[in-house]
């Protein structure tokens, strides 16, 4: 097995005169849980489809586990892949278990593996009900079970939590963690940045057909050098005292909202500021350091 299970080199896609993906270089290591974020039209869906071999690449190369996805060994390569498309509508007239049987047959996976997969995604009770009667969340879970057929080495999940309620989202990420423990590599897209940021190992921010940044959430925050916020709660006269002890430290802004003081400052100023604030003693009831969110990072790269 190649150590980089996904490897894109100068991957480019032109639609007529429009260049949707502009020479993307990207490597994803085996066993990573990798997030791809970007707003609509950033090219992430196109890149996803290029990786899956659904659209031809204008120039450059994408290798999955060292093989071209549409190369001569495409059947072997595709048996290693699981894919959950965004908003997939499966076959209304089939039952849940029949749907899995159909995809299992095409993937040459034994049908006897199917009930356990339905169990895994919590659909055992609806196995013999027609997909027509499924809720959106149930369809999404069935789609996920389909993607897990044949214990794939590499999972592509496009907006996988769309339509899931919070409990189901938690269950979904629990399954992803189990899969990662088994060494499965996962690439997922999401527009809910807050949801993805605590859960992926690394992510790439895509904008205008280019990957603008890649790394852990922490790497991206530091790379951007975005200001962070100290939130301090305390009694009367807090603002004056805080302003006094922070003299000489570069502060971007201080705002008072109710009894909470919001202080925006650069990452470099964080430790010196905390040291001075510690001298205030009981004047401060509570202190909270708020890191820039992925939203901040994301919009930072866009602007």
């Amino acid at each position: 097995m190649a150590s980089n299970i996904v490897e894109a080199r100068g991957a480019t896609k032109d639609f007529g005169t429009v260049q949707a993906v502009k020479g993307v270089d990207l490597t994803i290591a085996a066993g990573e849980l990798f997030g791809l974020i970007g707003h609509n039209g950033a090219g992430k869906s196109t890149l996803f489809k290029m990786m899956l071999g659904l659209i031809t690449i204008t120039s450059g190369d994408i290798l999955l586990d060292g093989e071209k996805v549409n190369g001569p060994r495409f059947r072997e390569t595709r048996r290693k892949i699981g894919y959950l498309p965004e908003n997939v509508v499966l076959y209304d007239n089939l039952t849940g278990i029949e749907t899995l049987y159909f995809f299992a047959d095409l993937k040459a996976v034994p049908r006897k593996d199917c009930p356990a997969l339905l169990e895994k995604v919590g659909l055992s009770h609806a196995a013999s009900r027609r997909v027509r009667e499924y809720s959106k969340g149930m369809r999404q879970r069935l789609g996920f079970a389909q993607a897990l057929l044949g214990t794939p080495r590499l999972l592509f999940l496009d907006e996988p939590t769309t339509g899931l309620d919070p409990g189901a989202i938690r269950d979904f990420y629990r399954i992803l963690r189990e899969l990662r423990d088994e060494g499965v590599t996962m690439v997922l897209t999401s527009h809910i940045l807050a949801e993805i940021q605590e859960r992926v190992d690394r992510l790439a921010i895509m904008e205008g057909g280019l990957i603008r940044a890649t790394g852990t959430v922490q790497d991206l925050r530091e790379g951007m050098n975005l200001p962070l916020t100290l939130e301090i709660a305390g009694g009367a006269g807090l603002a004056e005292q805080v302003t006094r002890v922070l003299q000489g430290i570069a502060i971007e802004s201080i705002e008072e909202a109710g009894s909470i003081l919001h202080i925006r400052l650069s990452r470099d100023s964080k430790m010196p500021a905390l040291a001075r604030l510690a001298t205030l003693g009981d004047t401060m009831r509570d202190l909270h350091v708020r890191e820039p969110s992925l939203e901040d990072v994301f919009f930072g790269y866009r602007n």
Partner: protein
Amino acid sequence: MLSIDFRQIGIIAGKEFWDRIRNRWVLAVAVVFTVFALVIAYFGAAQQGAVGFRSIDVTIASLVSLVIYLIPLIALILGFDAIVGERERGSLDLLLTLPITRKELILGKYAGLAGALAFSTIAGFGAVGLILSPQLNLNALFHYAGFMGSAILLGFAFLSIAVMLSVFAADRTRASGLAIGTWFFFVLVFDLLLLGALVVTAGDYGGAIFPYLLLANPADVFRVLNVFSLDEVRTLYGLATVFPEALSNPATLGGVMLAWIVGPLAVAIWRFER
């Protein structure tokens, strides 16, 4: 060039076929064929002031007219969303990430739908054949079987056109529009255009090529194929008297029909693989 895995074709075909059995499509179409065919067999000669079964030749001639309207329509409706329907549902992308080639997917879809259509045709007209069989001799049965076989081929040809439209169309609505347009063109307009051209030119120019132009329409190929196998009917059709012998050979006509099945399907595969 990727190898063809017939098992994958079989899986897709099996799903399409059983879908049509389960949603009673096959049953409904078979019943339509049976009812229409029986009505035509017994009342087809009502204009001549008689009811009841007359001869197999006259019955087949009436059935040919029915089939020319009905089967292309049914085949086009059956096939128009084969590919575009999956695309609109979002399941096409999913299928195409599986270990299956685009060619296998189209061939599987076609084979399954063609199976359902053939099954309905055999069941529907077969039932009528059984009902009529006490009044038929071996020769008549042979003609009736030939009629059924050619009706199946006609269905396959229009199904092939439908699947091709399904690959080219951007969405289901447009695909259905194209399918209905195709039906109008081949079933209603084509012969009128030919007749019109023949009348306008008064047969002076290229009169000899008109019979060959009929081959450009699978519905006409079907008509000619059946008309020429029936001595009694041949004389009823003025057309038959001017039709060149070379084209009236059932093998030639069968070959043309086969081309109408393979051609559009090949175009569909070519387009889908791009």
